[in-house]
């Protein structure tokens, strides 16, 4: 079976000569979640944007469901890839239903099919369709907005989902709630998922594999258990950051 995503020797050099991503390779199968973990500026987000060609790779190859990304029209490619960003980016002048149904509408699905899909997706992300279809983004809480953002990314049933710190801007309680639900969702969706975060706990909770990025390179790639046991210095630094240590007693 072809992998949802295959990345081979991916690289991105700025015109000025700075190397943002260098020789990154990995494969993500259906039902798998690869967490790209790293500090700010380590190249995680750049790697995501190279996959859906919001940035054009200067080296290497990307295959989405077996098809070369470079050979597709960028807009065609992106409609096969769900994309979720931290700021969500819902269209403020569209209702929830129109936001979720946007890609199906651009793909000229019939209206009844779009409505049915919107209903199905809202249920999937834990929002009551009857209560939410007609609302506008400004009438939603942060957590509800990101649920809609995830539903929107899933609308046209893409084989691959890219998430860029989707829960990073939420309050801690909502964040944990969405992380738990997302973990339940991952298995049911059966999609290839690449999940960018700098939160090691989140990464270990949601990833089937962890890819640790450092200075634009993939410094480590393995299961969460292998990551916990790793002696790679950056992995060790992340693990110790996750451990709050003993409480200070007065």
């Amino acid at each position: 079976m072809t992998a949802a995503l295959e990345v081979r020797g991916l690289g991105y050099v700025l015109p000025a000569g700075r190397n943002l991503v260098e020789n990154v390779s990995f494969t993500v199968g259906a039902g798998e979640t690869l967490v790209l973990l790293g500090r700010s500026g380590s190249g995680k987000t750049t790697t995501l944007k190279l996959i859906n060609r919001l940035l054009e790779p200067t080296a290497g190859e990307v295959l989405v469901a077996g098809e070369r990304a470079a050979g597709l029209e960028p807009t065609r490619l992106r409609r096969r890839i769900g994309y979720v960003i931290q700021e969500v980016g819902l269209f403020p002048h569209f209702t929830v239903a129109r936001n979720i149904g946007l890609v199906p509408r651009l793909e000229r699905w019939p209206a009844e099919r779009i409505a049915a899909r919107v209903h199905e997706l809202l249920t999937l992300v834990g929002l009551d369709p009857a209560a939410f279809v007609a609302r506008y983004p400004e009438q939603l809480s942060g957590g509800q907005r990101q649920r809609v953002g995830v539903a929107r990314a899933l609308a046209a049933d893409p084989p691959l989902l890219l998430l860029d710190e989707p829960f990073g801007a939420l309050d801690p309680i909502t964040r944990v709630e969405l992380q738990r639900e997302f973990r339940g969702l991952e298995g049911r969706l059966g999609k290839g998922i690449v999940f960018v975060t700098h939160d090691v706990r989140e990464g270990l909770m949601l990833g089937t594999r962890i890819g640790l990025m450092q200075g634009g390179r993939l410094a480590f790639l393995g299961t969460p258990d292998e990551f916990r046991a790793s002696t790679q210095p950056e992995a060790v630094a992340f693990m110790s950051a996750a451990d709050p240590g003993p409480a200070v007693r007065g």
Partner: protein
Amino acid sequence: MGLLSFYSRNSAELLGLIWQHVYLVAVSTGAAILVGVPLGVALTRRAAWRAPVLGLANVFQTIPSLALFGFLIPVFGIGAWTAITALIVYALLPIIRNTYTGIAGVDPAVREAGRGMGMTDGELLRLVELPLAAGVILAGIRVATVVSVGVATIGAAIGAGGLGVYIFRGVATVDDTLIMAGALPAALLALGADAVLGFVERRLAWR
């Protein structure tokens, strides 16, 4: 001589001048929208055009209107077309600038989400950027229209007609009633245009 009795004796001429005035403003503002909005959109796509285009439009704005009419006479001769050209030049800056600022002010996250979902540039513009910028663009059109109603009175000096005819005639004969006969309807036209476009602006803005 009172204003009302002047109007009652010259009602046909008054209506003709109002019509000429509205014609000058409507044709020039319409043309400025057709040129200015696409140009404003182009500026959001081509960073290199921004400074020269906005700079040039700014320079035009600083030319005194009577001088601009004068400069254009050798090119277009005397009459309505010279006045319309001058009015277009004045209307361009607020329309270009507001189209550009309105679109540039759209939340970058919204734009990134749209592109990331596979919207083409045209779809993003039509479905997202223009609707979200509509209020700001209309505010620019409104400013352009109101300014244009005032500047159009000077068109009478170069034979374009309009309510300026009464004003210039009144100045020449030192007749306050005649000046008022042109200035009052011109001011009312400006207020009316402002109110109508303000209403449209509130209806079209998505909030």
